[in-house]
């Protein structure tokens, strides 16, 4: 009897304890957000995210944000599955490269109501436009980035190479040659490293060629590829020539981008074909803050090559029960205050024109100069895939063509044709 009574008391106490926080939270909305960041993490971007969320929660005491960190390369696919199953989070981060795929799945909600026209004007760029359709806005982004040349200024100075003078592709060849230390089997440092492997790679010289100058776009409106033309051939030949000349490593044929960044960190590469977003990490890994960002050269006088840009678009799930609160969170993550936190604490590129204008001093500092250079490159030459087009996997196909040419001596035009066909067939064109 006694034990029974005690047990009842225990159960009641436990119930009470379980209920107490629930009643306290009854007035609150919890927003689930999927991102690849860990808000408890120690990297600068993670600290920036924690700060932005804390500010949002302070301003909106009725809304809590629960960040559910995901493994980044599985996140989008898992989101699509969760959306089908009706269990997706309220807020999702989508890499802009995959935005078309996600929009096609009808998984994103229109959040235009959370922004004023002034906001939209301040935020306006190619990527925001590519997430909008007929007045509907499916997301706005942060962590803007563009691919370009990343270099240790120290090595450039030692070799007497002026980064400002790399304007044409031949300039790049010459600079890479000059920057290479050693030769044959005993290269101590390559002039320009490229990640030409088959998985986890960045777009590089070939895409820069395909996007620049006269001719049909590399991808048409639906996302269909057009690569086997004179520009593509020139791009492959440029890539191959750098390897043959010994100023770019043959090993690069099987490097992921991470392998390339590691080699750069080790001082094995004076320049790499990389992403602007990696530079702050490279500054830490090398202990050298003087790492600069150089736009891809081109053979059009006075203009750099066009190159792919991307961001992480923050969006609201179409099936969310808290769409308004979620849209509020998305808007607050690119508010003028938040944007400044992202730039100054997180070292990311500004999403708003006004932020860039307000932080000119900060962006002029030696360790932040790359941010100004990348922001400018995005403005003049950033390329975004056509709205709603699914271009997933194109990088692997392009590198396969490069490997065919460098390793098997295939004719560039034929290799590009095969790659283009493989890509188009996979996408059902």
């Amino acid at each position, binding site marked *: 009897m006694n034990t029974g009574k005690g047990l009842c008391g225990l159960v009641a106490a436990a119930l009470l304890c379980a209920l107490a926080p629930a009643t306290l939270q009854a007035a609150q909305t919890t927003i689930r957000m999927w991102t690849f960041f860990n808000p408890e993490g120690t990297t600068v971007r993670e600290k920036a995210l924690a700060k932005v969320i804390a500010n949002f929660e302070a301003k909106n005491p009725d809304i809590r944000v629960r960040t559910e960190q995901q493994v980044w390369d599985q996140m989008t696919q898992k989101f699509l599955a969760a959306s089908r199953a009706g269990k997706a989070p309220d807020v999702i981060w989508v890499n802009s490269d995959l935005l078309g795929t996600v929009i096609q799945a009808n998984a994103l909600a229109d959040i235009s109501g959370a922004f004023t026209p002034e906001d939209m004007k301040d935020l306006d760029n190619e990527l925001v436009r590519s997430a909008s359709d007929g007045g509907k806005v499916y997301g706005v982004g942060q962590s803007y980035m563009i691919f370009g040349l990343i270099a240790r200024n120290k090595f450039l100075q030692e070799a007497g190479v002026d980064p400002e003078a790399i304007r044409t592709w031949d300039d790049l060849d010459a600079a890479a040659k000059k920057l290479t230390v050693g030769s044959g089997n005993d290269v101590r440092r390559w002039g320009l490293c490229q990640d030409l492997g088959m998985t986890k790679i960045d777009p590089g010289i070939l895409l820069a060629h395909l996007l620049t100058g006269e001719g049909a776009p590399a991808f048409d409106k639906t996302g269909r590829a057009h690569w086997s033309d004179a520009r593509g051939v020139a791009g492959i030949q440029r890539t191959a020539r750098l390897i043959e000349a010994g100023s770019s490593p043959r090993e690069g044929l*099987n490097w992921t981008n991470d392998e390339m960044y590691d080699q750069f960190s080790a001082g094995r590469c004076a320049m790499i074909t990389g992403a602007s977003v990696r530079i702050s990490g490279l500054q830490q890994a090398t202990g050298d803050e003087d790492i600069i960002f150089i736009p891809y050269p081109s053979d059009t006088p006075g203009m750099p090559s066009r190159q792919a840009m991307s961001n992480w678009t923050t969006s609201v799930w179409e099936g969310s029960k808290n769409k308004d609160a979620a849209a509020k969170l998305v808007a607050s993550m690119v508010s003028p205050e938040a944007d400044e936190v992202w730039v100054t604490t997180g070292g990311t590129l500004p999403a708003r024109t006004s932020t860039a204008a307000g932080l000119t001093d900060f962006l002029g500092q030696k360790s932040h100069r790359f941010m100004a250079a990348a922001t400018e490159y995005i403005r003049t030459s950033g390329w975004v895939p056509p709205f709603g087009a699914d271009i997933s996997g194109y990088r692997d196909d392009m590198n396969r063509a490069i490997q065919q040419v460098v390793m098997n001596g295939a004719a560039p035009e034929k290799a590009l044709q095969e790659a283009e066909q493989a890509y188009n067939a996979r996408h059902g064109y």
Partner: protein
Amino acid sequence: MTTGAYPAANRRRTDYGMLYVAPTVLLLILLLYGPAVSGFWQSLFRLDGADAGAFVGLDVYGKVLAEPGFGKVVLSTTLFVVGSVIGTVGLGLAIALYVNSLEEATARILQIGVIIPWAISSVVGALLFRWFYMSDLGLFQGMLRGFGLPAFDPMSTQAGAMTALILSAVWKKLGFAVILLLSGLKAIPHDYYEAARIDGAGAFARFREITVPMLTGPLLISSVVLGIADLNTVELPLIVTGGGPLDSTTTVALSIYQKAFSQYDLQRAITLAIITFLVNIVLVGLYVRSVRGQSE
């Protein structure tokens, strides 16, 4: 056979048996077989696009099998699995024979040393293997250079990359083979060797006449278990070679990963996973036979 030795007790209350295996069977069906069956079911319908949910039956199966690169994937997978199994079991047997000849305490320390790569996570193991052996930023290549040997770059040729991938699998799973084979060796009664010695059989004759036949079961079992594990591993090709160059190390497991997470074609990814699962079932058939063979 052995169950027949105790027939009276076994025929009494036969209903107990199902009751005893029920928790295990339930867990396996619900959590291991359920997802596989549900995956097969899902693969029969269109997963995305405008006509999502439409029945497509085995259409996609035909498309996946007819993909232009599929033959090369099958070839690479076969090369990888066969090469890794031969390497792992061969080297594992040599090590097991040697460790078996050592005294207990020494043997135990060496066993732990051998098995650690198997016991760490595949992602970390693959990263460390690539860095230490295959990269010029790793100690191994640094040491070779220190001895004045030429730097080597296995990754930029197709044969070299496959060799590197196979070596990574041998490195990762060697300890598992050693443990299985060592237990097989320990199970061989000492008297057999003594008797053969008295009969005047030399060391090689003893190995051929006693060790090899007695070890057939463990050799078969470890080959099949390792083969299945190699067939399904995605971490090694993903991290050690990335599938390249020119798809020379794209195994079927990596191909599934690429379809799902790089090409965003979940439909084909699931379809290929189901096909691979069927191949697994065939290997399991082999495995069951080898287990039966051993227990006789």
